[in-house]
């Protein structure tokens, strides 16, 4: 299993968020989530410009095995989506924390990021689920 990057924050539902240099945020699903799902075959991404409320289902990742909703970790407006996932959804399997990002957003309240689980807490959560 890939190591969990320390700069990421997480939801219990396995979404990650990264603060980018421009002060906006990137969202993806964790390496644990992609491993649970197995080979991804389709990704539905939100429309650019859409306003997302934290906790709203805003994307779908679908594998050979199952379809899974992705929830917005923080409220904000969608700036861009990762277009290469439409043809290469397996990018998420290969690099969930990097090239496999789903979309970026500008946060209504950037401090919401700091309220999410940090990498250590998320690792702890995964360890507990293993038992």
């Amino acid at each position, binding site marked *: 299993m890939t190591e969990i990057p320390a700069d990421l924050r997480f939801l219990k539902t396995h979404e990650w968020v990264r603060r980018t240099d421009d002060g906006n945020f990137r969202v993806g699903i964790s390496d644990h989530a992609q*491993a649970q799902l*197995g080979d991804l075959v*389709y990704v539905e991404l939100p429309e650019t410009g859409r306003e997302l409320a934290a906790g709203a289902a805003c994307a779908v990742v*679908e594998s*050979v095995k*199952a379809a899974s909703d992705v929830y917005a970790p923080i409220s904000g407006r969608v700036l861009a989506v990762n277009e290469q996932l439409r043809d290469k959804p397996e990018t998420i399997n290969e690099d969930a924390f990097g090239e496999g990002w789903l979309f970026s957003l500008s946060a209504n309240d950037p401090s919401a990021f700091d309220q999410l689980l940090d990498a250590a807490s998320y690792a702890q959560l995964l360890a507990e689920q293993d038992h």
Partner: protein
Amino acid sequence: MLRTTPLNALHRSLGARMVDFGGWDMPLHYGSQMEEHHQVRREAGLFDVSHMLAVDLQGPAVRDFLRHLLANDVAKLKAPGKALYSCMLNHAGGVLDDLIVYHLSPTDYRLVVNAGTREKDLAWIRSQSAGLDLQIRERSDLAMVALQGPKAREILFGLLGETEREVVEALTRFQAAQVGERFVARTGYTGEDGFEILLPAASAEAFWQQLMAAGARPAGLGARDTLRLEAGMNLYGQDMDESTTPLESALGWTVAFDPPERDFIGRSALETQRAEGIPRLLVGLVLDERGVLRHDQRVLCGDSGEGVITSGSFAPTLGKSVAFARVPAGHADVLRVDLRGREVAVRLFRPPFVRNGQPADGL
């Protein structure tokens, strides 16, 4: 406590993701289900199917008993080693299990039955054969591996001595032979050429490693499921069970109504159903747009009502989703499926969806 096969430790050492499959600890995949699927279609894959059970039936009464027990007719099996796919029915015509029966000699047959039904099957076979002159031997001492794909033959041949090789090379489809300690059958559940091989549990690991060294790559139950779906093969417990007859499960071709005097279990129920009209059919579906058809999704059939997807998946060879669905008889040609709240049109397509490693015409 999960049950394990003789290859369990080897799967773990190969990095398999293990899952509880009907009480058995089995490999789902060894990294990528999709790559394993393609490997079987293009070269050769290796499956552990030791959770399935071989049952040997021996004695003077065996042939007549099997002609009564099974919906297909073992009298079709003339040459030694020939095999037949059949349903085993209850008196109401419901499917207790689907199995392969091998004809070894006039007094010696072998059944290979599903893992999830092994206890039920044994109890049924024992109760139905009570008082008959035959022995029932449960072969839990044997492991079973499936070597499947266009390269399966050359891989297996390379491991055999000259005389063994001659025997195996001569096997026709659906024929088996005992070759040394191994029982080699030219059968499978993927739509590809290949073999299912029964051998002593203690020899399984070494044999598996030999096959891997010769170019076969391990494949898990995930790939096995997408391969069999593409090949148009039913899965027991999902596409048919005790509540459905073979006629409602696209398995009418496996029921031998001739000769009419053969009295097999379930016959009168099936004849009644045939006379009254079969109310539900199992059909193949294709989704030409994005999305994945999955087990339990509703199929909307217009005026004829609703059906349900029994097996559905993304089909890696096709790059789109296919499914089997049980729908009311007399349904329209274009059906719709409720895909997570979105209604999509699906096309009826008669399986198999993939033939000889290639998409069937029209896909």
